[in-house]
């Protein structure tokens, strides 16, 4: 070759086939600016909703100030380790919420790296809750550390098995994971509802009228590292979640398993040609994905919650598995991105419910919905990031259009 060859991209646009590959192309096109723009746009639209319903732009700004304070972020202005301080307390709750979301976010991100969309984080989280509760309640005689580790491990395995079912179904009969994980969510939900409900095998033994599980025995609870008497403290689950981020990163980027996962995710045909067992990887990636969500459930059970009520209605009380989707999408399925996304949504979840509950700015019953509005907008914008890219590129496009006639007339023969 005499000339260095150039990319012939504009002539033959490569059209990657898989979800992960298409995603990758879009992500590269926008850089870090797109997720930030996505969040700002979502916040802006949320503000418009508040301003419109409350007939006041001022109130919208106040609402965001209260969310900020409600999430405990004003703690940085006067840091204190005293949990009785309101900002410190708020921050501690934001951290707890964040650790759960890190794990449910990683669950979505890992499956995504293998080209699959795990919408079943919620069900896998429920299975983690159920198994961790069962172990935490039943093996009362065990010494504390092994008890905790066993409950965490089995909760994790429960999530892995639950997601693994969807993986097996996809690998063997081609059932799409989006459909099967959604159905598994409901199976987990009603399974828990039966276990912990009226007359269920794991229903509360001291109060047989309440459809709720027993309390996890004190020895199986995660120890707090930042706490105050009578308050819910911050347990070591935060560190487990942070460790999970490191594990995720290393697994994806530094192991042969991660190489296989990424190869299958980007191009299953090429992976098979390379000698990689695609079906095995689909099942394994799904199981690992579910393990993260199961761990989230186990940590929540052994940490703050200690008992659980599924309710008898069609509305699950928890949404952390679904918010994990927004976390992962916003975080571009990377470890660092997931951390940032989890911080954002952790703060938002706690900040809207606890910062706006005074009713001073907007009605408290509307406050929680603001979280859902912003969450929904983020998912919408992330999903439609072609749109965001389009908005992003508008100035350049407008400039070109104006420039074009000038150049073409200049080059016309006289």
């Amino acid at each position, binding site marked *: 070759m005499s000339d*260095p060859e*150039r990319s012939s991209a504009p002539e033959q646009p490569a059209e990657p086939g898989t979800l992960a590959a298409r995603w990758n192309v879009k992500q590269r096109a926008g850089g870090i600016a797109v997720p930030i723009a996505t969040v700002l746009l979502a916040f802006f639209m949320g503000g418009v909703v508040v301003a419109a319903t409350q007939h006041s732009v001022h109130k919208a700004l106040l609402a965001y100030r209260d969310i900020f304070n409600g999430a405990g972020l004003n703690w940085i202005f006067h840091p204190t380790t005293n949990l009785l301080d309101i900002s410190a307390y708020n921050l501690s709750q934001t951290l707890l919420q964040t650790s759960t979301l890190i794990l449910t976010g990683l669950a979505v991100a890992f499956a995504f790296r293998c080209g699959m969309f795990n919408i079943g984080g919620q069900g896998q989280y429920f299975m983690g809750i159920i198994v961790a509760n069962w172990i935490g309640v039943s093996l009362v005689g065990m010494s504390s550390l092994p008890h905790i580790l066993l409950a965490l491990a089995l909760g994790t395995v429960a999530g892995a098995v639950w997601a693994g079912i969807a993986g097996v179904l996809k690998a063997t009969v081609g059932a799409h994971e989006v459909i099967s994980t959604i159905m598994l969510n409901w199976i987990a939900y009603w399974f828990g509802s039966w276990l912990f409900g009226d007359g269920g095998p794991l229903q509360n033994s001291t109060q047989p009228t309440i459809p709720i599980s027993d309390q996890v025995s004190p020895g199986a609870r995660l120890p707090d590292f930042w706490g105050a008497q009578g308050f819910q403290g911050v347990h070591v689950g935060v560190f487990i979640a942070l460790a999970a981020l490191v594990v995720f990163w290393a697994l994806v980027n530094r*192991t042969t398993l991660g190489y296989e996962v990424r*190869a299958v995710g980007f191009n299953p045909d*090429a992976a098979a040609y390379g000698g990689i067992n695609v079906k095995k990887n689909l099942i394994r990636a799904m199981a690992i994905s579910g393990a993260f969500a199961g761990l989230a459930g186990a940590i929540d059970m052994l940490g703050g919650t200690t008992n659980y009520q599924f309710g008898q209605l069609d509305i699950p009380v928890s949404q952390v598995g679904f918010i994990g989707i927004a976390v992962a999408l916003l975080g571009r399925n990377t470890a660092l991105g997931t951390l940032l996304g989890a911080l954002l949504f952790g703060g938002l979840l706690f900040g809207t419910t606890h910062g706006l509950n005074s009713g001073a700015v907007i009605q408290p019953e509307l406050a929680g919905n603001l979280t859902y509005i912003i969450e929904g907008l983020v998912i919408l914008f992330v999903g439609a990031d072609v749109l965001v890219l389009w908005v992003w590129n508008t100035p350049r496009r407008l400039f*070109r259009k104006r420039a074009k006639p000038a150049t073409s007339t200049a*080059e016309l023969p006289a």
Partner: protein
Amino acid sequence: MGDHVADELVLEMRGIRKEFPGVVANDDVSFDVRRGEVHALLGENGAGKSTLMNILYGLYRPDAGEIRLNGKPVSFSSARDAIDAGIGMVHQHFMLIPVMTVAENVVLGTEPVRNGIFLDERGADKRVAEMAKTFNFAVDPDAFVEDISVGQQQRVEIMKALYRNADLLILDEPTAVLTPQEASDLFEILQTLRREGISIIFISHKLNEVLEIADRITVLRRGKTIETVPRAGATEASLARAMVGRDVLLRVDKEPAQPGDVLLTVQDLHVRDEREIERVRGVSFDVRAGEIVGIAGVDGNGQTELIDALTGLQRIESGTVTIGGRELSHPDARTALDAGIGHIPEDRQRRGLVLEFTIAENIALHDYAQPPTARFGWLFPRRMIDRARTLIREFDIRGGGPQTRAGGLSGGNQQKLVAAREIDRDPKVLIAAQPTRGLDVGAIEYLHRRLVTERDEGRAILLVSLELDEILSLSDRILVMYEGEIVGEHTGEVSEEAIGLEMLGGREPTAA
């Protein structure tokens, strides 16, 4: 032949410029077409041929420049505008509906209508039949498209354009899908069309065809017009030089083969595809060390399934594959690789590369889990990158370093990357399927030389190609595959016609 070519210009494109982010695809390109002329547009991949034609066809808007059709300036904002102005385009991939008849396909979208709403089927049939007769198309208007040959389907595409009153036809690499016989039929039709005053733009990168059919030839290189020359006086060498920018060795230089031990033996192989249709029906052959065995055949005669079976990507129904004396029964991709098969797949973008992976990661695609790249499941990216750097140098892969995404490379460099990986594994048997498909002359020259070098190194090379020229110039022995069977074997001199006939299933009593 030139007497029908009037000097009247049907199309003038002047100073066309089109920029994509990071690439100037067309830079001050000028191009014109006379009435009743076949004007070839020649250039390597990425030279800007498709961009120019997409601008003409209203799919892209030029950043600068002027288009005049029959002397009047035009500006198309969609293909519909171009069609209305009398431009027809026949793409490489046909856009026909297989379950509809020829006539239905031709009139689709502009159906003749009776009483306002009813499809005038007889009217449609009649017009299509008249057209087929005028231009000598030899296509039955009532036949279903799925039942006719690829060459006939292409004629249906041309009829579609003519039905819409096109007087300027763009043919995008029309012979890429045709057998030699079908190609010469097409050329006859093109001669008829130009006698009727239809102008034709013939996009190609095959020099011999261009010299056979074109009245004038315009060469593009890296987005610029290099020259427009009449056919008289142009030679393959002069055109290749214009395309690449330097002298190109068009013939493959090779010593006679020195075949050694048999490294690949295929015995009575039967393979079914996903739909359980038997695509390979009792194929037996062997390939020796130090020889290139070429398999010729029209696309879809079982070549793909044969290769997939040899490389463990498709289940073997019955029969045996022996590599280097070791028999593989029902190999998967991993056992085939371990047995010493290297495979340059026919579709480098779908199968040969993970386009989102870096060059280094792609080079590790077969042995990412083996030392030194990995140990106990842990990857050492540094070592992957070092190895990639060596191979990039050895195989002259241009356009990026070890950490460049493979998808960002040009087709030729992507193929070099695949070849580098497969050859570096030191395979006993190297299977090269369509190794130069879609590549430009420079890259083709490199890969051909490399295959001969690897042959001389003592590898057994199985070459599968739809390009008969490639088979003829590289192979020491030629097998012809037709409907899943080997129908001919040739060593030494053999005519293109004889093989072409066998490729279509007609057996000639030629002794091998």
